[in-house]
């Protein structure tokens, strides 16, 4: 009879083996090593072969992960050291075996002068050599097998030790209990509830927001400007999709309407209107809001996902129209619009990257303020009721059509606002700025952050738009990582990283009532 430890170890090991082989085949082993290098402060270049040490560390990390998850506390059996070690060994060894076999195959092929890049463009001779630790083929495979096995067993031993060491456990318990006591203690809560302490915290926060754009340079202003624009987009989409529950796939349509309206009104070409920034901004937001209203009128009386399909179509129609010869006279066609106006105030123009960062921070604050106010208002509750059960919402007296129309128009207007900022900052906008990928990104960031939750959207925007800039090495795997992230999210945290919470209205009202009585 096979023990469950062997079973579990094999299962985990095979999964990790497949992951390692997939990483190798798409060239991620090299990227992973580069990422490890970055942690140690060594930046890698694309041309140089990856460092062996960092590659080994990367592999050990994977082996440790496999071993630790195989040796996790069993549900039904006794948590013995022998069981943990068996599981860890099996996991490490089977992952190592699979990787070694693949290494052997590719090493031999490369030795015979066959270049696998014909079929697998990412498997370069360099990456094969690294995969075999720069050793001859048999020795390299053996090293791979050994490394993963040892790290699996080691991880199993350490995780079992950490779990079952009583002294360590009580120590940890005491520390965390002390920390919680401190957080919950009277003294701390008095400070956090003190209005002056809050003002002080707000001041510090404001100071950071003012100082940072001045100090960290143009590149980071650009990156975080983009993050800010995506936060605005996420907050906007969240109104119609997160709160009112109507999926909008072609959200970029309204972004494009805002950006192009603003561009056409302020650029010298093709119409030479050159309106004032603020006037054009208002008109851009209005145009986007009205386009949302118009697209919603015929379809929002229907239930289901018609809105998703229709907006998807709208986004593509707008993009293709902008590219077409038909519209060249009005929108410059595929060339796009140049020299879009920047913000002016009292005759002074503010178009430096720092000024724009301030403008975007201000815009994010305004939109966050609006979203927060709407969230738990009568209107917001009606949206959420429609989201949860439209039939019942109608039967409680909510005009679902008008409510949804309002949500869509507000969402569209906010997207238009983001479009205006985007066009103005880049001083250029063209059809290629308004591809469907923008919508997909926004949907992703809302879902990953925690649908319906404002802090979640901030987190999502930083994770999906900020992190890829920080981790430049993973550039070419961005879509892959997106996919993996989404699948993991759906499995582990289906409500997003920071799921929405409902306010405790009864309790706060009760405590207020008590206060009045006293």
């Amino acid at each position, binding site marked *: 009879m096979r023990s469950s430890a062997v079973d579990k170890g094999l299962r985990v090991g095979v999964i990790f083996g497949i992951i390692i082989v997939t990483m190798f085949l798409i060239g991620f082993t090299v990227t992973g090593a580069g990422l490890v290098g970055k942690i140690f402060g060594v930046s890698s270049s694309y041309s140089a072969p990856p460092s062996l040490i960092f590659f080994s560390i990367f592999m050990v990390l994977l082996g440790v992960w496999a071993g630790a998850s195989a040796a996790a506390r069993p549900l039904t059996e006794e948590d013995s050291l022998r069981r943990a070690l068996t599981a860890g060994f099996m996991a490490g060894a089977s992952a190592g075996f699979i990787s070694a076999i693949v290494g052997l195959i590719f090493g031999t092929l490369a030795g015979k002068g066959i270049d696998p890049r014909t079929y697998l463009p990412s498997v370069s001779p360099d990456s094969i050599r690294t995969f075999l630790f720069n050793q001859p083929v048999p020795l390299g495979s053996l090293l791979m097998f050994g490394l993963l096995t040892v790290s699996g067993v080691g991880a199993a031993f350490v995780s079992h030790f950490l779990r079952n060491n009583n002294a360590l456990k009580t120590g940890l318990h005491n520390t965390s209990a002390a920390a919680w006591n401190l957080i919950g203690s009277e003294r701390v809560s008095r400070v956090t509830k003190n209005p002056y302490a809050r003002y002080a915290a707000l001041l510090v926060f404001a100071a950071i927001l003012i100082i940072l754009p001045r100090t960290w340079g143009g590149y980071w202003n650009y990156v975080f400007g983009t993050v800010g624009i995506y936060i605005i987009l996420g907050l906007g989409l969240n109104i119609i999709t997160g709160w009112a529950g109507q999926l909008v796939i072609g959200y970029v349509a309204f972004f494009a309407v805002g950006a192009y309206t603003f561009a056409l009104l302020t650029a010298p070409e093709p119409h030479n209107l050159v309106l004032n920034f603020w006037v054009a901004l208002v008109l851009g937001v209005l145009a986007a809001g009205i386009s949302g209203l118009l697209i919603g009128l015929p379809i929002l009386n229907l239930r289901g996902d018609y809105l998703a399909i229709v907006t998807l179509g709208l986004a593509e129609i707008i993009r293709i129209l902008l590219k077409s010869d038909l519209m060249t006279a009005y929108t410059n066609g595929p060339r796009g619009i140049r020299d879009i106006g920047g913000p002016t105030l009292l005759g002074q123009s503010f178009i430096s990257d720092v000024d724009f960062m301030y403008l975007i921070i201000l815009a994010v604050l305004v939109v966050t303020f609006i979203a927060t106010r709407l969230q738990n208002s*009568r209107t917001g*509750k009606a949206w959420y009721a429609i989201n949860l059960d439209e039939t019942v919402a109608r039967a409680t007296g909510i005009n679902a059509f008008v409510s949804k129309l309002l949500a869509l128009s507000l969402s569209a207007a906010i997207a238009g606002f983001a479009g205006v900022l985007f066009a103005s900052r880049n001083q250029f906008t063209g059809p290629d700025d308004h591809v469907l990928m923008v919508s997909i990104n926004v949907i992703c960031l809302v879902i990953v952050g925690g649908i319906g939750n404002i802090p979640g959207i901030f987190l999502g925007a930083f994770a999906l738009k900020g992190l890829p800039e920080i981790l430049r090495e993973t550039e070419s795997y961005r879509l892959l990582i997106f996919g993996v992230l989404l699948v993991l999210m759906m499995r582990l945290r289906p409500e997003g990283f920071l799921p929405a919470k409902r306010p405790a209205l009864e309790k706060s009202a009760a405590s207020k009532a008590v206060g009045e009585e006293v």
Partner: protein
Amino acid sequence: MTVCIETKNVSKFFGGLTAVNEVNLIVEEQSIASIIGPNGAGKTTLFNCISGYYVPEGGEILFYGAPIHGQPTYQVAALGIARTYQNIRLFGQMTAIENVMVGQYPRFKAGWVDAILATRRERNEEKQAIQEGRRLLKFVGLEGLGDQLALNLPYGAQRRLEIARALANKPRLLLLDEPTAGMNPQETDQMTHFIRSLRDELGITILLIEHDMRVVMDISDQITVLDYGTKIAEGQAKEIQSNQRVIEAYLGPDVTSLTEKYQLRKKQRHDAKS
């Protein structure tokens, strides 16, 4: 007495199926009327016609003399007709008090601009809505559970919360679709008592669908029996209990003949003995 709700020859078809067939119903103000009938008799369809979810193909529905058929659900609700559902339909991801606050929607005016600017109207209405919500939760016996998500409440509490949500709009007519379904005898008694108090204390007219005959016979001022979409009987508890067509509808047409046969045979045996 004033008539609260009246249906005149109301019919509703689904394709070739006649779900409700020319039903006439008159319910007087501040009374409790029950609709009973076997499964598929068209009771819930009639409810859906009254609450505006379906538009009847024929006939009229009058609420205090004014026609309401063909009006959208939200307008019917705003007029003061509230309902509950056979399978409880709360806004599960909202808290209990929020459910009641959504129920008050038509009573307030503040729109999105008020919400963004936090105008005096918005703040006053929010305060009123919370107060009224707490009052209603207390009325249905859910005080202290207001901040629980509706889906986390126990079954009986969910039923009562659904009624609290229906009451939030201060309705004049309350449609209850099987309010005691899935309850034990004790809970059923409480619910019966509660329904009666709705009429006596709040002056609400109540129209209810119910399968538990004990409840129906106990609280109804008037009972209407539907079968295959047609009204087959109407009257007070006593009359309905002895109505031949009602017994046939529930137990099948052979029941009477069976009893007759039994009586006949008994008589024969008796005769043979003597």
